[in-house]
């Protein structure tokens, strides 16, 4: 029997970027917030031994414990979904900071085109350009409307970067708060080659500070040391923007945040139109608690946001048969197979150093910056060279045809250890009728609740995009002039243990129409006005860029909406 606790104004589920931003904004405004986080508390002292490739990258120290909760996956409805038993692809965060602790820090804004993709595609190419199986939607918010929130996030996190003009990139009200990251020799090779080809390279925007920075909340952080331990790791310098060193300390300092760690929410209590609170388990003692609240903010990872709503009977579950309902709809991913690996003879780079958001990119093939009239896909990809730092267990790249083990493997992997890098890409992911999330009929989590089931595969759109973009990566690699170039032009089937991107989006999408979306532009649920579902779960499609800054901007907007709702009540739009 759950212990019923006193009612609070706001309860937040999950203390990553989304929950951290909401908690910070509300507590600064004097509103009491209970923050429930299933994992442990964290600060930078947790990261003093973070330069441990085995523990953090290959044993997933910062990630969700899959023995308690995972997803099941299948490529199509004919298959039986099976649990992702160990990590291979998505690395879902856990603990205070969430995925915002282990992220790389790449912080591109989405394009104006992204927010009005349906209208802009129809205007330029006609309605027939969008396949009936592609439920493409406008977001219910324009770039100009979201711009101030982007600006707020960038100032809070101290984003380093350089302004891009043209190519459909949205105007900025302010320059980036800190200058771009350093340019390394491999970035210079990419820069020269792409300029020679007529493209317009820019240093990618980074949440790893290029210089010491104090943000408007008074949080001071040190500059990045290019130590190569971002991706999968926490930053002991606090140079990498992380909720645990930015928004959460600010919320704690107000005295208005009641942060409860090891608290796993299993259900949002509701009567179908209004939530009354949440049910959670203390994962250390096993005790169960009911936390009543005026407003419930669901701010966990994409997967758990969707699962919690479905397990709580909130909103209308998506049905692929007649395309009704919205919870679980428009699950999207990204398309990153187009790439050209380059090997260099007799040339070594200092690839042991790097940072998660150290890289250079061209804007020429994203969004609608190029004509899609004769192409069988929409949107495009960012084409880039990055330098994360080549940690030795993960980076044993050898030319095709080299055996995967033994004498030849060892010799080649050592020979090229500091002499390879790819021109790679990250492509947008368009929604598809049969790519969605729902509850698994068979498998349960540690608390007896059904796991989330993912039905997803790459589509013709994705395969065409990869074919097209890979040719550009090849052209750039040839211009760079590597000794061996290996280009991948094929997009295979989605493989839950082989793909390597944790940019999952959708499932609780935003929009202007309650029939086709789950939340409005304040991420307030159409069907339960005191529930706000915050995160990349709100994206109606996924762009070619990393999702965090857009997720962060929407979190600031949601926080504003929650304050209004507490005063006025009712639907905010």
């Amino acid at each position: 029997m759950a212990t019923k606790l006193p009612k609070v104004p706001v309860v937040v589920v999950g203390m990553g970027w989304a929950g951290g931003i909401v908690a910070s904004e509300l507590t600064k405004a004097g509103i009491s917030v209970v923050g429930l986080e299933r994992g442990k508390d964290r600060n930078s002292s947790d990261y003093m031994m973070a330069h441990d490739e085995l523990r953090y990258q290959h044993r997933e120290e910062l990630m969700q414990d899959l023995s308690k909760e995972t997803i099941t996956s299948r490529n199509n409805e004919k298959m039986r979904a099976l649990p992702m038993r160990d990590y291979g692809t998505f690395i879902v965060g856990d603990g205070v900071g969430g995925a915002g602790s282990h992220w790389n820090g790449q912080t591109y804004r989405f394009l104006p085109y992204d927010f009005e993709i349906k209208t802009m595609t129809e205007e330029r190419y006609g309605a027939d350009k969008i396949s009936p199986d592609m439920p493409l939607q406008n977001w219910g918010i324009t770039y100009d409307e979201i711009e101030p929130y982007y600006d707020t996030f960038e100032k809070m996190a101290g984003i380093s970067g350089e302004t891009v003009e043209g190519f459909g990139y949205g105007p900025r009200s302010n320059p980036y708060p800190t200058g771009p990251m350093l340019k390394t020799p491999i970035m210079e090779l990419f820069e020269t080659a792409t300029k020679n080809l007529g493209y317009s390279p820019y240093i990618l925007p980074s949440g790893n500070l290029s210089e010491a920075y104090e943000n408007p909340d008074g949080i001071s952080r040190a500059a990045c040391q290019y130590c190569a331990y971002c991706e999968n790791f926490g930053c002991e310098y606090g140079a990498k923007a992380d909720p645990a060193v930015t928004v959460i300390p600010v919320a704690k300092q107000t005295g208005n945040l009641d942060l409860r760690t090891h608290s796993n929410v299993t259900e949002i209590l509701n009567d179908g139109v209004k939530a009354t609170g949440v049910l959670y388990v203390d994962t250390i003692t096993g005790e169960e608690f009911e936390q009543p609240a005026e407003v419930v903010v669901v701010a966990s990872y994409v997967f758990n946001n969707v699962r919690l709503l479905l397990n709580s009977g909130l909103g209308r579950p998506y049905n692929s048969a007649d395309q009704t309902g919205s919870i679980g709809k428009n699950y999207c991913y990204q398309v990153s197979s187009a790439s050209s690996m380059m090997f260099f003879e007799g040339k070594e780079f200092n690839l042991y150093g790097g940072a998660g958001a150290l890289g250079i990119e061209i804007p020429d093939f994203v969004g609608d910056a190029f004509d899609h009239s004769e192409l069988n896909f929409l949107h495009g990809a960012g084409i880039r060279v990055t330098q994360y730092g080549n940690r030795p267990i993960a980076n044993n790249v050898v030319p095709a045809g080299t055996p995967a083990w033994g004498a030849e493997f060892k010799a080649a992997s050592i020979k090229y250890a500091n002499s390879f890098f790819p021109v790679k890409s990250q492509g947008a992911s368009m929604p598809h009728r049969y790519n969605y999330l729902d509850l698994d009929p068979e498998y349960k989590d540690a608390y007896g609740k059904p796991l989330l089931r993912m039905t997803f595969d790459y589509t013709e759109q994705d395969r065409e995009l990869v074919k097209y973009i890979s040719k550009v990566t090849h052209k750039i690699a040839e211009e760079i002039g590597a000794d061996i170039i290996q280009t991948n032009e094929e997009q295979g089937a989605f493989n839950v243990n082989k793909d390597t991107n944790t940019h999952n989006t959708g499932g609780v999408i935003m929009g202007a129409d309650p029939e086709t979306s789950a939340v409005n532009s304040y991420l307030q649920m159409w069907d339960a006005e005191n529930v706000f579902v915050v995160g990349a779960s709100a994206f109606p499609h996924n762009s070619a860029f990393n999702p965090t800054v857009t997720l962060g901007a929407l979190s600031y907007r949601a926080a504003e909406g929650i304050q209004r709702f507490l005063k006025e009540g009712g639907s905010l739009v």
Partner: protein
Amino acid sequence: MADNSNMQTGKKGTTRRDFLKNSGLTVGGVVLGGAIGSLFGGGSTATTQETAPAAPALTVNPSAALMFFTPDQYKLAAAAAERIYPKDDNGPGAMELNAAIYIDHQLAGAWGINSKEYMAGPFYKAEETQGSQIRILRKDLFVMGLAALNTYSNKNFDANFADLEAEQQDEVLTAFSEDKAPEISKVRSGIFFNLLRSLTIEGVYADPLYGGNKEMQGWAMRKYPGTRLSFAKEIQNSDFVQLDPESLTSHMGH
């Protein structure tokens, strides 16, 4: 007399330099007594009654002992790992780098019993795209895999794996890697092989704190400087800057 309490308590994070500084002694090639003498590996016999007994000098790596394998299993794992990552002109192979010690330690711990994996049933046959669906724990699969290496070796070459010629060992491992060896308790032989391969790579390149990558020689071979705190100075250099490796012990006491 010297106060060598630091030495006796084995205070964490105390470096040799700190110790010498704290001890108040100067070092000039002079024999300073039993404790410091043994620290330097010197052959001092000048211990007096007043000096506290020295901690025994460790002449071997204390981590190089077994917590999981039997000695025969260890020998077999070391031989197999050596073929994955053999000694060559670049430097030592997996055997010399203590990769099998690393494997032993990993299988003995939480990872060996799949503690962070979803292990609830049922276990169905998976499509290629759905990842591993194996109920057998890693520690059990690995030991069964080692036994299967010997069975296969005896059947084809009339000897245990560890006693075969390198070329014969490679033939055996190739058969396992290509799923041509018999299944191991219904698990494809290639799955065991992949476990052996990835553990060997980890054992060669993980931080030495885990028992492998002996003296950071795995890192040195590929000019990897280890887990240094900053590469801000080197990262823009157009010439390759080779640095001596540092392991996580260098982060202690920060």
